[in-house]
């Protein structure tokens, strides 16, 4: 039997970082992870630090774009968070904030960039519009088809392999107890408050008692919340990423595309990482539904489309050898914004998941820890799980 103030379910970036902040604030913290630390999307994503509004928010109408613009305030916090992370954790996270270019190839895309930039500037994000030549002056590897780009000096990339282990290590140093390969089997609410959680590691059962529960289990979040009889409307998405062999420095900036699915950067070791939201095919369970524990499969059209976009923007990528394609499984919510905060239907129950969580994860964690400590944090209002409260009218 373990009894702590907080039980965190999920050993990804958000879970480990929140464990650190809560432990530093004096809470007793237990974290359980069903697999290994950083084994999910936290360690499998492409490592972009992107603060410009994402293409996916711009292509589905003005209402969604308006809503997404509300996340800009969080992006500003995240920029500062990333600038301090390596010092705070005392670890080289290969953070590179040498700027990011979101490129356009057609006049329509240029118009989209302009509209996007207006929203960002009014939200306090200092994006700059550049014509093609100015963009190429910043990043000579860009090809001749780039007509314009919006530039944000704070963007860049970091090492997804390093960040979460660094948070986990720091959390453990601060007193959090972390166990891996331990599966949560049930979550029971106690009266008047708190939770009993049954967990299994190997053949060993353990009861974990906690006043607060925080679920940060990525794509598994809905399944874990279901153990508490709660609906969390997150849907798994499998995204393709590709890595080239190492090459000399060719891309200092993060490259994204306003009209096509593309993100590209050169990681510290010299490999170019190519992604941008191309779908892979989730594995299916024989009885229907997605099998998140089986490997997703690559869709050949995603691969060829992603690589074509990369070559169109940076032609010299074509001559590099591809050495690895992989799929990270993340989630998306009904309104595309992440879900992060208290589930007010079940006092003491908190959740954070829903994508963009490499760039924003460290910030989510810092803010969630404050919310769990009893503070009201306005910046998180836009992400509150309570915007889907109606789904839990008959749950809890």
């Amino acid at each position, binding site marked *: 039997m373990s009894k702590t103030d907080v039980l965190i379910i999920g050993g990804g970036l958000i879970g480990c970082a929140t464990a650190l902040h809560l432990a530093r604030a004096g809470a007793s913290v237990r974290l359980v992870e069903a697999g290994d630390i950083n084994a999910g999307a936290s360690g499998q994503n492409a490592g972009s630090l992107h603060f410009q509004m994402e293409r996916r928010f711009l292509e589905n109408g003005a209402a969604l774009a308006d809503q997404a613009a509300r996340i800009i305030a969080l992006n500003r916090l995240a920029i500062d968070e990333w600038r301090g992370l390596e010092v705070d954790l005392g670890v080289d996270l290969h953070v590179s904030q040498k700027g990011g270019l979101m490129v356009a190839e057609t006049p329509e895309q240029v118009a989209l960039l302009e509209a996007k930039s207006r929203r960002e500037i009014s939200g306090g994000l200092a994006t700059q519009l550049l014509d093609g030549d100015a963009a190429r002056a910043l990043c000579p590897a860009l090809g001749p088809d780039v007509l314009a780009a919006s530039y944000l000096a704070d963007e860049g990339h970091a090492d997804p392999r390093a960040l979460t282990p660094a948070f986990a290590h720091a959390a453990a140093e601060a007193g959090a107890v972390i166990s891996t390969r331990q599966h949560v089997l049930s979550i029971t609410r106690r009266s008047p408050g708190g939770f009993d959680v049954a967990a299994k590691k190997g053949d060993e059962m353990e009861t974990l008692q906690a006043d607060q529960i925080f679920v940060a289990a990525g794509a598994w979040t809905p399944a874990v919340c279901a153990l508490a009889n709660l609906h969390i409307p997150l849907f798994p998405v499998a995204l393709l990423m590709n890595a080239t*062999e190492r090459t000399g420095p060719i891309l200092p900036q993060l490259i994204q595309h306003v009209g096509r699915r593309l993100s590209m950067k050169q990681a510290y070791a010299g490999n170019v990482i190519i992604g941008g939201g191309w779908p892979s095919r989730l594995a299916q369970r024989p009885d229907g539904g997605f099998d998140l524990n089986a490997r997703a499969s690559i869709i050949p059209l995603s691969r060829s489309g992603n690589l074509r976009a990369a070559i169109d923007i940076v032609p010299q990528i074509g*001559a590099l*050898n591809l050495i690895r394609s992989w799929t990270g499984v993340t989630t998306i919510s009904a309104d595309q914004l992440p879900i992060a905060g208290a589930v007010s239907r079940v006092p003491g129950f908190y959740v954070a998941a829903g994508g963009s969580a490499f760039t924003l994860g460290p910030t989510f964690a810092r803010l969630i820890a404050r919310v769990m400590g009893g503070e009201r944090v306005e910046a998180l209002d836009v992400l509150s799980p309570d915007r889907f409260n109606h789904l839990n009218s008959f749950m809890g």
Partner: protein
Amino acid sequence: MRIEQDVTRGAAIEISVDGIALAAFDGETIATAMLSQGMAMFRRDARGRPRGLFCNMGTCGECMVTLTAENRRVRACVTDAQNGMDIATDG
């Protein structure tokens, strides 16, 4: 050392590796052509140490060289030398 006894090779060809002309024979791999002229280093590793071909069967990835005309990086051990080929190593 090319085995001479009982062996008839293909036509004499010439390739260029890092600007050095190498005599080779039709049918030889790029790796054989390089090694037989004493070019055992195919690249330097991250710490600057010399590295050579290892498995000679296409699995280890140690013998990648660049065909400069095609701008294509290939494994020297499974790529046949062609007359006039221009090759660059990472050494």
